[in-house]
């Protein structure tokens, strides 16, 4: 029976029966799994769950002491709540959204155009106080003025090319906030979606006249985002057609409404608004969106599990468009906590087992810091970067340094294409060669101040050391077969330090490490 029919059958079931779960995601999939004959799924064990949660919420591997504390008292809800509220969660959100909002492009000249420290701390603060997503997007779409005092304005600033009409802004705002791919409509009516060229330029007209204004300020250099004249109408390039600023439904704002405010107000009430962020959040945690890729909604590819998507979107709106309650709902679900052992025959959209989630550049950089102290190693470079007087002042800050590192990590994962999507690990020879042979990274395995040296100092017995190495890299103790194999290896090598280095090397290069599962 086709999968969609099963889904419909499941949904045609009566309202919640007394024995059914109160959790909206669980209730939905319980029915679906039962209708599809998918047997009850085991949950991930505590180690697997905790590693997954940590990578998804704070973007890094858990440390051995954190793992041990959790396993001693494995209260999953408590772990979810405290992680969601942590400072590191806000950091990870800021890193991830900085890349998303810049369309995953870090051009070398970008620090001259926007203020990274101000923009990133604004993103972090928004996550920390769980700013309603509606307000978050309103500010990104309509804040103008000084880029330090109104840091959200950096989003629009980054997308301006002074030599072009502001169409890149249209591409970004419709894609990121409404999940729509409108760029085809820049040159002609969209061949498949309903969007016309006038729709495209009608949105662009809201931004007509937008420009950065560089100026000296009392503390150096500043940029102000201006609207001169405030957008209202513009010509479609290479044509004789003038379009007024108009929404996707063809209506235009009233003459007294400031255009950017009017556009923001339109966006946050658009039916796609909540669905897009719910889908994006779902995809982040579950490894696969209801609509996939998450920025490519189209009428010809309807979402999987539409009723669940709608229910979650409605709940999101009832929660005042705050992201934390949404994340909490997903993280506490059985679908999220399912074992990662692949489930034969179950379609991916049934979410019966957790998908393998390839690391993002931010996660790659974090795992290298966590297992090899890469962050310590980079401090020297960072110092040089800050002291390099040849670099304009707007480059010399930790935020820009971090952007370079993420860009570098992205290049290791895959050739950086131009698709406005995050680079994900798809099996990279370049990363493999780096992890296997880079003399810098090998030096970090051997360093006297390295993680491995610490472990060897702290633990005396081969078994204890092996446990600690496994917890550090794979976030779990070795199983019996692994224990036997590696202890035999250590014995054969007479417990030499180099034999521990070999084991460290193996785990750093293992497939289990480079995916979240």
């Amino acid at each position: 029976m086709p999968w969609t029919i099963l889904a419909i059958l499941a949904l045609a079931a009566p309202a919640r029966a007394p024995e059914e779960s109160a959790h909206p995601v669980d209730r939905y999939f319980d029915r679906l799994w039962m209708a599809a004959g998918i047997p009850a799924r085991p949950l991930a064990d505590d180690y697997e769950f905790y590693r997954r949660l940590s990578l998804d919420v704070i973007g890094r591997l858990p440390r051995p002491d954190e793992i041990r504390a959790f396993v001693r008292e494995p209260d999953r809800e408590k772990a979810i709540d405290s992680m969601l509220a942590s400072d590191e969660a806000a950091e990870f959100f800021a890193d991830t959204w900085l890349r998303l909002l810049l369309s995953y492009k870090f051009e070398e000249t970008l620090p001259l155009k926007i203020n990274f420290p101000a923009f990133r701390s604004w993103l972090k603060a928004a996550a920390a106080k769980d700013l309603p997503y509606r307000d978050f997007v309103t500010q990104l779409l309509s804040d103008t003025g000084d880029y330090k005092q109104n840091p959200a304005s950096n989003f629009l600033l980054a997308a301006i090319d002074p030599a072009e009409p502001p169409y890149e802004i249209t591409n970004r705002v419709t894609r990121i906030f409404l999940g729509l791919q409108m760029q085809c409509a820049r040159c002609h009516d969209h061949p498949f979606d309903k969007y016309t060229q006038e729709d495209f330029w009608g949105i662009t007209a809201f931004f007509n006249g937008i420009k950065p204004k560089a100026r000296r300020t009392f503390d150096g250099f500043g940029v102000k985002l201006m609207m001169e004249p405030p957008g209202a109408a513009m010509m479609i390039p290479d044509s004789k057609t003038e379009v007024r600023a108009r929404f996707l439904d063809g209506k235009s704002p009233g003459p007294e409404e400031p255009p950017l405010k009017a556009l923001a107000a339109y966006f946050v009430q658009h039916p796609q608004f909540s669905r897009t962020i719910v889908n994006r959040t779902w995809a982040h945690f579950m490894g696969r969106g209801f609509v996939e890729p998450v920025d490519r909604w189209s009428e010809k590819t309807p979402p999987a599990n539409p009723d669940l998507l709608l229910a979650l979107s409605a709940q999101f709106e009832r929660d005042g468009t705050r992201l934390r309650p949404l994340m909490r709902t997903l993280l506490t679900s059985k679908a999220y906590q399912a074992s990662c052992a692949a489930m034969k025959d179950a379609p991916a959209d049934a979410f019966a087992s957790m998908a393998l989630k390839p690391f993002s550049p931010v996660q790659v950089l974090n795992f290298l810091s966590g297992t090899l102290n890469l962050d310590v190693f980079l401090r020297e470079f960072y110092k040089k970067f800050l002291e390099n007087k040849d670099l304009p002042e707007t480059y010399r800050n930790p935020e820009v340094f971090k952007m370079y590192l993420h860009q570098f990590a992205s290049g290791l994962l895959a050739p950086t294409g131009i698709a406005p999507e995050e680079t994900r690990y798809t099996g990279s020879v370049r990363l493999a060669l780096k992890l296997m042979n880079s003399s810098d990274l090998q030096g970090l395995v051997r360093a006297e101040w390295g993680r491995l040296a610490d472990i060897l100092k702290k633990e005396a017995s081969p078994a204890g050391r092996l446990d600690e190495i496994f917890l550090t890299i794979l976030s779990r103790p070795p199983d019996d077969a692994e224990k036997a194999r590696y202890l035999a290896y250590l014995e054969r090598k007479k417990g030499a330090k180099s034999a521990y280095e070999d084991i460290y090397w193996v785990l750093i290069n293992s497939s289990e490490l480079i995916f979240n599962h």
Partner: protein
Amino acid sequence: MMTTTCAHCTSGRRDFIKIAFGASAAAALSGKFLRPSLAAASPPRAKSVILLWMQGGPSQLDTFDPKPGGETGGPHKAIETRTKGLLVSEHLPRVAQLSDRYSVIRTLFSKDPNHDTARYLLHTGYRTDPTVDHPHLGSLLSQELGTRAEGLPGCITLGKEPGAGSGYLAPELSPLLIEKIENPLEDLKLASGVTSFRLADREKLLWEQNEGFAARHPESRLESQRKAYERAFSLMRSPNLKAFDLSSEKEETRRLYGSSPFGRACLMARRLVESGVCFVEVTLADWDTHSDNFNRTRGLMEQLDPGMSGLLSDLAQRQMLDETLVIWMGEFGRTPRINAGNGRDHWTRAFTAALAGGGIAGGRVLGKTNAQGTETLDRPVSVQDLFATVYGQLGIDASKKYMTPSGRPVKILEGGDPVKELLA
């Protein structure tokens, strides 16, 4: 510009055909290839490609299409070449002397003045498309021709990140980036203290470690990871790594290419092609001369002249030029108008590419621009025409279709006719 023939959307129309004609068409698409190659008309001449990529958009007026004396000409003088009707910049004297080895297209055009997307266009033959990720030309050649160099990948880029990835082809066909020309084997040779015996120990433990995980996750992502490591290991042990070692070249040969990193990379490209790699990209960056165009282009040509002429004469001397197609190009050209900062801005209406070897005739010029370089007078050549020429010379049927991961059939190239005037 209310046109309905936009290259990046044509794939959408094919989707319509699929929807309209339904399941029987869909069934025919189940294999990876839609239909077998309908053998190319002429026998292939080229077996490999070396792309000399001028990152930033090289100024055609200061290289291969000079307009001396006019208001757009600028201070560089033009010199005669061995080709009738072809002048080049005075800063390309050696390239000028070799003009019987290559032909120049002076009227290449596109509509894309943005670096990133134009770079993609000139590396894939396609405009960017949110729904299809097209492969790098070199990845496509690796798929179609395969590598003949044991342990080395089919597509190698020297110095700079490649202009595209493997696209809808397998990830293992991604271009391999060699970051440092000075130290090309940086991450390929074993770290100090690691002997080949120790590597063998590590490798055995690694495969054992991965086995357990793979048993629980029969997923294609894991398969890609395994293949990446297999490739990395065979690369590390490849007998062809010596191709990266320029020290075994005669001093005389090395001198031919000049001492710049670009020159050395050109020599490395020849050695890689010699050992059987089918695509090598060498980048000469910094052609984005919005300011100080003339000093900067002179500096760049001082590297280009020995590198390019060294490569062409060395390939010819070794009887390799017939089988090696050399392409010189960038993402677009530069404005005839000289701006206030003595620079030139982006220009897509008529820019230059040069082709040599691989069955391309030498000593010809195609297309003509007017006295100011502002208009094409004769024979505009599209980017698709250029790609059709390249595929034709390699014996690749450009109308062959591949299935993308999302199940959409995409032709190797959409449109474009080979430029017959340049074929030997």
